[in-house]
């Protein structure tokens, strides 16, 4: 009932986002269908912002249109949004939800409609369906978790990790890839446990993890639980190194904690725009702050890079969804976060970085970059 009402309200809200202006026949549309409400709204908002910023780079001589639709958290809402978007003129490509279950629901329809879906979803299975219309501009778990495990074992020299993960699909997928990566490195975790996202107190799992005598804590949790566990670890005087999942790199996660609580904490991610880097990354970060009044994260940068690659294809003459798909499938694109190239399945991103906090600020430093980390772990 609650979900149905959410869906109804979401669709009503979405209908108000549609541009009332009639489009010219030669206008290319790039709908942004992302979760702006529900449990993934934080990441979905980053995704939307990245896409919106990219779509401001209108190629000369091409009329661009875009509509933003909130897909909420249900697969049916995402499918409905895609059907609506497809009926709105010539669609070039779709910035599609990062929620794996929504992507899996949209893929058959995208195949039927012949529309490229450009996403930053980390769910491994979306590029394992044999669907030529999906393009992932964020490293999947196979990449990020390999980097995660390799940093723990190779850089920190730890061989007794305690793994705490979320019981959601995101958590299960990450845990499976962590297990595989640790196994490839000859390491067996001394403790593994899943945590429900609604759990308010993480001291029980932290106590049990510490009782297993680990030499490092490895986290794969959403934003709030990551901050909660770090806070409880800090107040409990835990001095073990902690290497967290990509939720930790998000500025909004760090904002929940004091810099001292972050000392010695590292995290894997695709990129960390606020940590600086090239002048282009700095320009992106400044533009993002000016446009949205927020700090950008890797999801925003990944979606920005994805939509920028789409626009590069348009600049090069692609005017149909199939031409854009062919360009995404075959071209190499040097984005802000990394260089993107399809592996034949739609996986465009093959790099990951490790960032660490020094305890004096909430801005992490880039400490290690892995380009295709899975190769060495195999």
């Amino acid at each position, binding site marked *: 009932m*609650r979900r149905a009402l959410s869906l109804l309200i979401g669709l009503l809200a979405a209908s108000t986002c549609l541009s009332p202006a009639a489009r010219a026949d030669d206008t290319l549309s790039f709908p942004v269908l992302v979760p702006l*409400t529900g449990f993934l709204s*934080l990441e979905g908002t980053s995704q939307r912002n990245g896409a919106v910023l990219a779509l401001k780079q209108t190629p000369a001589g091409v009329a661009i249109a875009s509509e933003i639709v909130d897909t909420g958290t249900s697969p049916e809402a995402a499918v409905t949004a895609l059907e609506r978007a497809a009926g709105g003129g010539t669609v070039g490509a779709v910035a599609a939800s990062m929620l794996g279950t929504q992507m899996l629901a949209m893929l058959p329809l995208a195949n039927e409609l012949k529309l490229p879906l450009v996403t930053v979803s980390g769910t491994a299975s979306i590029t394992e369906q044999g669907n030529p219309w999906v393009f992932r501009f964020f490293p999947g778990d196979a990449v990020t978790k390999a980097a995660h495990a390799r940093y723990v074992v190779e850089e920190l020299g730890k061989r007794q990790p305690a793994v705490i993960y979320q019981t959601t699909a995101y958590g299960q997928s990450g845990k499976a890839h962590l297990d595989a990566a640790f196994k490839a490195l000859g390491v067996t975790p001394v403790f593994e446990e899943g945590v429900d996202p*609604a*759990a*308010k107190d993480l*001291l*029980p799992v932290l106590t049990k993890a510490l*009782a297993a005598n680990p030499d490092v804590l490895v986290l794969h949790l959403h934003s709030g639980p990551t901050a909660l566990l770090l806070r409880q670890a800090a107040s409990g005087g835990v001095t073990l190194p902690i290497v967290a999942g990509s939720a930790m790199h998000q500025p909004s996660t760090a904002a*929940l904690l004091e810099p001292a609580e972050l000392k010695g904490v590292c995290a894997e991610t695709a990129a960390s725009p606020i940590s600086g880097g090239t002048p282009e990354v700095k320009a992106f970060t400044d533009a993002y702050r000016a446009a949205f009044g927020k700090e950008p994260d890797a999801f925003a940068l990944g979606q920005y890079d994805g939509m920028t690659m789409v626009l590069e294809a348009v600049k090069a003459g692609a005017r149909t969804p199939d031409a854009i798909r062919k360009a995404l499938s075959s071209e190499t694109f040097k984005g802000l976060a990394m260089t993107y190239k399809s592996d034949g399945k739609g996986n465009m991103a093959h790099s990951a970085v490790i960032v660490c906090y020094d305890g004096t600020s909430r801005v992490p430093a880039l400490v290690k970059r892995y380009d295709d980390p899975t190769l060495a772990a195999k």
Partner: protein
Amino acid sequence: MAALQLLVNGVALGAAYALVALGFVLVLNATSAVNFAQGDLVMAGGLLAVALAPLIPLPGIALLPAVLVLMAALGLVLALAAYLPLRSRPPVSVFISTIAVGIILQNGAAILFGPEPRAAPPLFGDDTLHIAGLAVPEQSLAIVAVAGLLIGVQQWVFARTQLGRRLRATAQDPEMARACGVPVTAMILVTFAIGAACAGAAGLLLANRYFVTPTSGGDLILKAYIAVTVGGWGSVPGAVVGALLIALFEVGVSSVLSYPVALGALYLTLLAILVLRPQGLFGEAVRRRG
């Protein structure tokens, strides 16, 4: 020692849950309506504290009066919009209207505050006290103290004041209360206001230590519902004890087994109570005759 540490955390969490359950059961008693927006009112209280913090640069406890007043006002709006127009309709109408209010609150919060998790300022301090080998965050002590004080004040109002007697009369038998001159509609409005104020206070207490997002109220309403069922449907002391038991159960079972098991066990226990002791721990058994 670890068990004691977990007990401290469980009691702090239970105290906040108790405030949520208390607001829930008050409305239930006065109106027979299940207010499914109660969890979202907790979220609203937490975000209200976050919004007020820059305006009142004092420890979080200084925000409590403002949160109580503003949330009470929100409770009045909830009663006027989602309960009073529907009170002569079947109970399911109110059930759905409060769900709708909850969704409106969630989406309104998402628009106003964005989706990021946020933290309210600590009630008094943010240090961790080390007492007999236990690490006790000041915030945990503050949660227990403030929740205990609010529950105590509320019980005193209900037991010792004219307003409390009128509220209890309304809860027990609205028609008889109206016949005796009690302004029943006004009492229902006051009950909604108190219920929302309780939720807001819980939001303030929880939002520093456990953070708050627009969707964080969803699981709290389930906890309140279970607490009221375990304690006894309609029993105020039962709701408080039920909430404490749930928090201790959650922390205890998850520390021995795991979170998924604790969650499953909690719902199985609820099912067992519904079957074996439907009146709960403190409720009165009602038998039909004939």
